[in-house]
């Protein structure tokens, strides 16, 4: 793979030349970037590849709360300024989730365990400020497509997206302790302490059995790239 300089560099590439820096500075001043400015909340958490649950990753979600029942998140591999953008997660309320058809529901995961276990954390934010939001998130479901598999060594985003699952308290959903420890040390977080503080957050009365599909069905979902013939009726080219 062609790369310049550092062989481990992800992604590969030369440093930015002056001319593109000028436009960056220029654009920062002139453009309002309203959509990305809405992503004003940072969450550190973990996710697991649905198709291979031995692969667990730390994720950094940058969240736009669109309304009381919907969030859209850009997901990065770290919180550094050069963090790779690795996917998108959408988060919806239980009410919206219950109205989805079953085949759609199977693609989503629950958040109750992730919140109550302390995995889902807000770096640099006092827990008391996060508390109302946590009660909301605990009842939601998420759908997370990973578009760049950094953890398997991809220096560029390759192949089709993968469906991700959330940490759970059983079986292959249990996070490896060293993964959690590393996150905790980096961000001065104590997952155990968060878990204790969140004990009073109500468990959802019911988690839909279609969510976290692997738990009760032992199956996962992968995406196949299929070839589609162009419409032969269209004048072409």
């Amino acid at each position: 793979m062609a790369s310049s300089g550092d062989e481990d560099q992800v992604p590969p590439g030369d440093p930015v030349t002056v001319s593109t820096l000028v436009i960056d500075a220029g654009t920062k001043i002139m453009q309002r970037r309203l959509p990305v400015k809405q992503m004003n909340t940072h969450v550190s958490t973990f996710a697991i590849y649905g198709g291979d649950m031995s692969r667990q990753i730390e994720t950094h979600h940058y969240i736009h709360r669109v309304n009381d029942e919907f969030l859209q998140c850009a997901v990065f591999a770290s919180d550094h300024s050069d963090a790779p953008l690795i996917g998108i997660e959408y988060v919806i309320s239980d009410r919206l989730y219950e109205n989805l058809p079953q085949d759609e529901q199977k693609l989503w995961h629950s958040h109750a365990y992730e919140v109550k276990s302390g995995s889902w954390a807000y770096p640099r934010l006092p827990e008391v400020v996060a508390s109302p939001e946590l009660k909301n998130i605990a009842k939601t479901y998420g759908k997370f497509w990973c578009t760049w598999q950094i953890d398997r060594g991809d220096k560029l985003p390759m192949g089709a997206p993968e469906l991700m699952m959330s940490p759970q308290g059983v079986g292959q959903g249990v996070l490896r302790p060293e993964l959690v420890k590393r996150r905790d040390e980096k961000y001065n977080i104590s997952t155990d302490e968060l878990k204790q503080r969140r004990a009073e957050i109500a468990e959802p009365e019911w988690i839909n059995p279609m969510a976290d599909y692997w738990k009760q069905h032992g199956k996962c979902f992968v995406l196949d790239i299929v070839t589609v013939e162009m419409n032969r009726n269209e004048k072409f080219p």
Partner: protein
Amino acid sequence: MASSDKVPVACPANHGEGKEPMGDPTKTTTAMLDRGTAMMQSLKPIRQMSLHVCSFACYSHDPGCQIEVHIYGHRVNQDFLQCAVYDSNSSKAHLIGIEYIVSEKLFESLSPEEQKLWHSHDYEIQKALLVTPRVPELVAKPELKNLAKSYGKFWCTWQLDRGDRLPLGVPSLMVSPQDVNLGRIKPELVKKRDEEHGISSESLKPSRDGISGPEKKNLVADYWVRFRKGFALDVVETDMKRTAPFP
């Protein structure tokens, strides 16, 4: 279930009426969190997304199906950008996908199987379909010249144009406008975009003269143009990989 499904399974979320996404307005308590986080958290990766371009994209499985896109990109280095893609440039914009953009040099290092999923950018830049709102052409020129030689891979994760009020189904692979029948952007789409942003694509075209595409035209990118085949994603339920659970 495939990204090429014309209509997802019937449910409230795919009835076209009503706002997208569905959901009640934000409560005060959660609005307060927003203010707290804005003050205390650092949002470094998001702050890097300083490049805004507006263009059009087509569905790989049906290039006649076309959408306006607003791309917010972070130029990570001279050869790579990563971008969040939205359907508009307002604070209410929907996050509809991710696009990665690589230089010719990086693109040539990919396998042909991977290259098939990528598209070129020269046509949309030369025809001023791709514009840089609020940034004068003179300032934008160096970046446009760079982008014109690049290749992109764009996964659309929310088919709003299909009427989906929530992101349903699986991602779709998108392709770029091309100078062939299905790849030319419908004039009414361009007109709507131009009017909304006070732009005239026509009058920008002369400034794009002399902007050239990749040094060597890759024969695998824009796969559908040469081979009349697009790509869609199909979701397959399959056995889980057997690994010993922890502990």
